[in-house]
């Protein structure tokens, strides 16, 4: 990051801490798409991602006073973003558990199992399989993969965001790719079409 960018960040964060309207507008237009893309990578749902994006932006503005400038503003925002997203997923697990209880009792409509790849292709559920595969990745692999693929973040920035070394990021992404390939191997026939 060059000095002009650094100066801009410091200025923006100072104005955000004062809750200046122009700073809030500038901050939202600058970061909303990146935050939204990462949130989407975690929750796979537009409505949840929008809600989460708003929460992240609000938290950043509220916490602006506490930002010490030890890391880049972007890195700090991404850190808040993925922590919030992971928390949201954990909270959603309770709802999913309740939903499965409803399935067990019979209050919900029974879901049709579609393990046959051709059936899945017909229903356009292959993306659901991809989402499931991403969700089943270990937490650190998932974070690295989403930051890399959903927001095209360079490895160096992923390393700074996750507070790990560059080689760790490479290793996490390599393992994530391998795990996804294994999880989605049975759909390879569908993919070639």
């Amino acid at each position, binding site marked *: 990051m060059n000095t002009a960018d650094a100066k801009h960040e410091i200025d923006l964060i100072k104005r955000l801490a004062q809750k200046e309207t122009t700073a809030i507008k500038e901050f939202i237009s600058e970061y909303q798409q990146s935050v939204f893309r990462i949130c989407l990578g975690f929750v796979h749902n537009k409505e949840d991602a929008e809600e989460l994006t*708003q929460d992240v932006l609000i938290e950043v503005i509220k916490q602006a006073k506490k930002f010490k400038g030890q890391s880049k503003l972007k890195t700090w925002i991404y850190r808040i973003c993925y922590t919030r997203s992971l928390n949201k997923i954990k909270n959603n697990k309770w709802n999913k558990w309740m939903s499965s209880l409803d399935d067990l009792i019979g209050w919900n409509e029974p879901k049709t199992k579609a393990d046959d790849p051709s059936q899945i292709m017909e229903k356009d559920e292959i993306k659901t399989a991809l989402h499931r595969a991403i969700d089943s990745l270990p937490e650190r692999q998932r974070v690295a993969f989403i930051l890399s693929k*959903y927001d095209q973040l360079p490895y160096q920035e992923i390393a700074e965001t996750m507070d790990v070394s560059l080689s760790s990021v490479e290793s996490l992404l390599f393992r994530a790719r391998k795990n996804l390939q294994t999880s989605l191997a049975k759909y390879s026939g569908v*993919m070639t079409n």
Partner: protein
Amino acid sequence: MKKEENITQKIDEWISDEVRAHSINIDADLIENKLNQAHPIIEKNHLTVFTTIIIMVICVSLGFISVDKKVTASKAQQETIYFNDITLENMEKSMLNP
């Protein structure tokens, strides 16, 4: 092309499609309004937990009251039977030994 490479390429394509298909446009006024909103003393989640605890306490209390009532009723019944027995014995005795 190897099978693994093909899968990886497809994954990248799907993610790109997904990202391209969605975008967000947040109204800055909405964020400002939310920032200016007063903080609730108890958060929604805390309120749910609090309500659940209160309901549990009420249920347990009702259970205790119900059990206590049954015990009291059974004791009263036993005492009545005992009292009735004594009365009959006394009556028999008084009949035998006028």
